[in-house]
Every structure is written in structure tokens, then in C-alpha cells.
């Protein structure tokens, strides 16, 4: 409680309390996060429990339309699964993949960026050329390619490996931005007095890098990471929609949209539109939160 109180009184907390958009976005993001973490309790049914599924419940419209039932608030899909429950479980998978891939790309990107900025020389030149090449191709193309190679290498991969490849393919396109940002800040920081002082007193280079320089370059990284969560979730959804993402046995939002897309023409729009709305809601709230954080942490705008 005390920590929360102190945070609310800090600069960032003040700006948060005075930004309705940020509070709304944080509220939405919190609800999504809460629902997906406690999906087992929040969701009305367990959509993966085959025993409870009844084919007679299949393709029911949302509760407020003719033929809808109050048992299935947002209707059911082709196998009689409750859309609302599938959506809650699906956003759990989307969030986990999104967060995991952002974390992985932060670790890789910050590490390589620190190394490039701190050491300079040929390591720096090589890493930055690599970044240039990566940036000249759209992220979705690189992710698709890695997902495809993963598929070719492990044709009958178990589910956990499929998710590993998915997370890897998203994070391998994401690290570039962190590396570039961190390298730029590190170049500035490494000539500052506190680094020189540490050097003179004989602190090991690795320790300077992580204990002294790293905390000072993390500000922009946090902003970037917040916005990248939204990008990663959308990339995951796109990959899953294209059929190379989350396996159908544990569908993410993108997989749900892909499945529902087949029923669009027979008029059963709710199977695909509700997961789509959920995706937009998550991405939008994370994006708004990231925008606010960027403004709040930017001293020039204060």
C-alpha cells in the first residue's frame, strides 16, 4: 500500500492521476490481464473440456439476438464452445506470447546494445550493419520466415516447442529497436564522469556495464517495451491468423479469428468479430498506455 501511495505522489504518478486516457487504458489493460490470469475462475465454461461441449449448442448467436441463450453471452462457435470463454482463454495465450517475446527481445536487444555502445569497434560496426539489414525488411516477413523454418525443422513438434518457435520468431524481429536505442544512450553515458570514476577505482568493465550504465539507459527501453507489447500481440495474432502461429489445440485470439473467418459467409459473424474486438481492445489500451508513458517520462514535455 505504501509503495502504491509513494508511486502516486511521484512525477509519473501525478501525470497518471491527471490523465483520464491513461487511467482508462490502465483500467482496460488491468481487466484484460486479470481475466486472463484467472481465466479458470472468470470464464463461464472451460472451452477445452470436450465433455461439456454439446453439438446442439453449436453456432448460437449472442444472447441479445433471436435464438441466443443467456447461457452463452456472446454466442457459440461451430463446436458449441462458448465464445466468451474461448476469448478469455485466447487472450491469456495472446498475452503470454506477447509478453514473453517482448521480454526476450528486451534481454537480447539491451545486452547487444550495451555491448555495441560500450565496446565499440568491429563488434559495434557488425551489430549495427546487422540491424540495418533487419530493419530493411518488414517484421512480419522475418517472423513468418522464422516460423516457417521452425516448422520445416520440427515437422511434428509438440505444443510447447511450437510456442517456443512462435515467441522466438516474434522476438528476433523486435530486439533491433532496443539494441539501437540502448547503443545510442550508452555512447553518451560511457563518457560521463560517473563511468570514468568507476573505471579509475578499478571496477570491472562488465560490472560498470550492468550496474552503472544499464540503469541509466532503461528509461527509453521501458517506453519502447510497452508499445512493443501491443505490436507483439498483433504480430502473434497475424501469424496465428495466417496459420503458422499458436496451434489450434490451444487457440490464441488470432487462431480464433482464423477459425471464425470460415463462418463469416454463412452470417455467423460473432465467431470472428468478438475475438477481433478483444484484440483491438488489448492493443489499443496498451498503445495508449505506452503513449502516455512516453510523454510522462519525457522531461522536455513537462
Amino acid at each position, binding site marked *: 500500500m505504501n509503495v502504491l501511495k509513494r508511486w502516486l505522489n511521484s512525477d509519473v504518478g501525478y501525470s497518471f492521476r491527471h490523465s483520464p486516457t491513461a487511467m482508462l487504458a490502465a483500467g482496460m489493460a488491468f481487466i484484460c490481464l486479470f481475466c486472463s490470469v484467472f481465466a479458470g475462475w472468470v470464464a463461464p465454461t472451460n472451452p477445452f473440456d470436450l465433455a461439456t461441449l454439446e453439438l446442439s449448442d453449436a453456432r448460437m448467436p449472442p444472447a441479445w439476438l433471436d435464438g441466443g441463450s443467456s447461457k452463452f453471452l456472446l454466442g457459440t462457435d461451430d463446436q458449441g464452445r462458448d465464445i466468451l470463454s474461448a476469448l478469455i482463454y485466447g487472450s491469456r495465450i495472446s498475452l503470454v506470447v506477447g509478453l514473453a517475446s517482448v521480454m526476450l527481445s528486451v534481454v537480447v536487444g539491451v545486452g547487444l546494445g550495451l555491448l555495441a555502445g560500450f565496446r565499440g569497434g568491429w563488434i559495434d560496426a557488425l551489430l549495427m550493419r546487422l540491424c540495418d539489414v533487419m530493419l530493411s*525488411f518488414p517484421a512480419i*516477413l522475418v517472423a513468418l520466415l522464422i516460423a516457417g523454418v521452425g516448422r520445416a525443422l520440427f515437422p511434428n513438434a509438440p505444443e510447447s516447442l511450437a510456442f517456443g518457435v512462435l515467441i522466438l520468431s516474434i522476438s528476433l524481429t523486435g530486439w533491433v529497436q532496443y539494441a539501437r536505442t540502448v547503443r545510442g544512450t550508452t555512447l553518451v553515458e560511457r563518457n560521463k564522469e560517473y563511468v570514468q570514476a568507476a573505471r579509475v577505482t578499478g571496477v570491472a568493465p562488465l560490472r560498470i556495464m550492468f550496474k552503472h550504465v544499464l540503469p541509466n539507459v532503461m528509461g527509453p527501453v521501458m517506453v519502447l517495451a510497452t508499445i512493443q507489447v501491443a505490436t507483439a500481440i498483433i504480430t502473434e495474432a*497475424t501469424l496465428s491468423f495466417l496459420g503458422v502461429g499458436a496451434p489450434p489445440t490451444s487457440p490464441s485470439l488470432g487462431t480464433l479469428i482464423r477459425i471464425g473467418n470460415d463462418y463469416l459467409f454463412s452470417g455467423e459473424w460473432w465467431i470472428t468479430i468478438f475475438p477481433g474486438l478483444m484484440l483491438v481492445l488489448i492493443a489499443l489500451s496498451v498503445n495508449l498506455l505506452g503513449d502516455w508513458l512516453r510523454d510522462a517520462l519525457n522531461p522536455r514535455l513537462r
Partner: protein
Amino acid sequence: MLAFILQRLIQAVVVMVTVAFIAFLLFQYVGDPVVILLGPDATKEQVNLLRADLGLEQPFFVQFGHFLTNAVQGEFGLSLRQGAKVSRLIAERLPATLELALVAATLALVVGIPMGVYAALRRGTWASQLIMTVSLLGVSLPTFLIGILLILVFAVMLGWFPSFGRGDVVQMGWWSSGLVTVKGWHHIALPAVTLAIFQLTLIMRLVRAEMLEVLRTDYIKFARARGLSNRTIHFGHALKNTLVPVLTITGLQLGGLIAFAIITETVFQWPGMGLLFIQAVTFADIPVMAAYLCLIALIFVVINLVVDLLYFVVDPRLRVDKAGGH
């Protein structure tokens, strides 16, 4: 300037060789072609014979050299899934994707630039506010959702446009065009709009921002002082100077268009290269993936090169800078 062009050319070649090397590694280490061609029951002699036949016994770099020579001639072997030549498969699908990308790019420019100019000149009016708000939505909606929504509204509910395929296609030599028939235009409408929306919002926001920037400069104030008409100032002076960054972004986005066409083509079952690539990815069809990778890289490299060179044509300051600097 010659040195600059040469440097860019070398850079382009390096990128191409790197991409070709990655494609070659795919061939080498993902899926053994001998096993695929002979099946699991082949004898040891058969395997060795085929290995020698395919040149798999040769040193690594000799094999890479062979791969490069073949790749330059557009030869990537047979598709593992369809059994047809990869070069032919891609040539068949290329026109569909290029037509889609071109129509989308034209749409984005023709609608995006005027909207951006309007939003900058009439800043603060409700119409320009509306344009900006809608554009924010366009940036945050994923492409495939835009496609699905368009299908739902215009194909399923209203029934105005077809939702899949190219419609009537006319064969002109090796190029199959859907743009010469009414039905073809009917079919391209929804996919092109889907593909264009992201680029459109991007171009519009860019033109608006650049325009606002330019309108504050001294030479615009001076032009006003000379008593030139608003029309001449806005379109003769200001717009012309905003076009450099717009040109860059549009050029670079053309490659993005082709990449995003993968998504659009999947949503609308548009028979282009993107759909071919997605099928190759789902079935781990390495030759098709490698060929697509090389082709896309080539397109990207060429576009980057052309944009760099166009800078010199559009912005005379660069010519002076480079010539005087070195």
C-alpha cells in the same frame, strides 16, 4: 555522386549475397533433399549415387557458388509440394501481387496526399479533426481485421463486392491482367482498399506534418510578402517541398506493401505470391520459401537504391553537399 552510387551498389550486392546465403543454408540444413526425393526405403548405394548426382559431395563453397549461379538465372529447383518448377510458379503469381500492390499504392497516394494537404491547410476544422481521428484508428487496426470487416460489410451484408479471387483475367503474353475487365476491377476493390488503408493513413499524417513544418518557413512568408496567391504558395512552393520525405516513405513502403500483401492475399484468397508463400510456409516447402525470400530481397534492394537515387533528382541541395564535402 559516382562514388555514392558505387557505394550503394556494393551495399546492395552484399545484402543480396547475405540473403542468398541464408536461402542456401535453408536448402542445406532444413530437410535433406535426398530423403525427400528417394523416400525412407532407399539403399545406401542409391543415396550415395544421388548425393554425387546432386553435387552434395562437393565442398561447401562450391555448392554455394552453384546455388548463386542458379539463383541469378532464377532457377530454384522444384517445389516439394506441387512438383512444378519454382520459377514458373512464381512467374504465374507475380502479376496478381504486383497489380494489387500498384493499385493499393496509387490509391494511397491519390487519396492520402490531398487529405493530408487539406488537414494541414484547414487545421482545426471539424473535417480535418475527423480525418485525424479516423487515421489513428487505421494505424491501430491490424490489416487482417480490416479485411475481415470489409468483407463482412461490403460482401456479406451489402453484397456489393466479391470477396475472393481475381475475377476475369486476360492473358497478355506471360502477364495475366485483371485490370482490363470490369469484373477484375470489381474483384480488386476490397483487397486494394484493405492493403491501402495503412499506407494511406501513414502518407496522410506525413504530408500533414511536413506541410505544417514547411508553411512556417521563411521562404513561405517571403512568398506571401511578394503577394503571390494562396494557390501558388500552397501548391507551387509548399507541397513541392513536402514531397521529398513523402517520396522516400512511399518508396520504402512499396516493399512493405508486397509484404503486407501476404496477409491481404490470405484474407481475400487472392492468387498472388503471398498466398504461394504462406502455403509454402505451412507445408515447409523450402524451395518456394527460398525463392520468395530472394525475390523479395531483390525488390527491397532495388527500391532502396532507386529511392536513394531519386533523392538527387528531387533535392538539388544533396548534389552540392556531396560534391563539396569530399
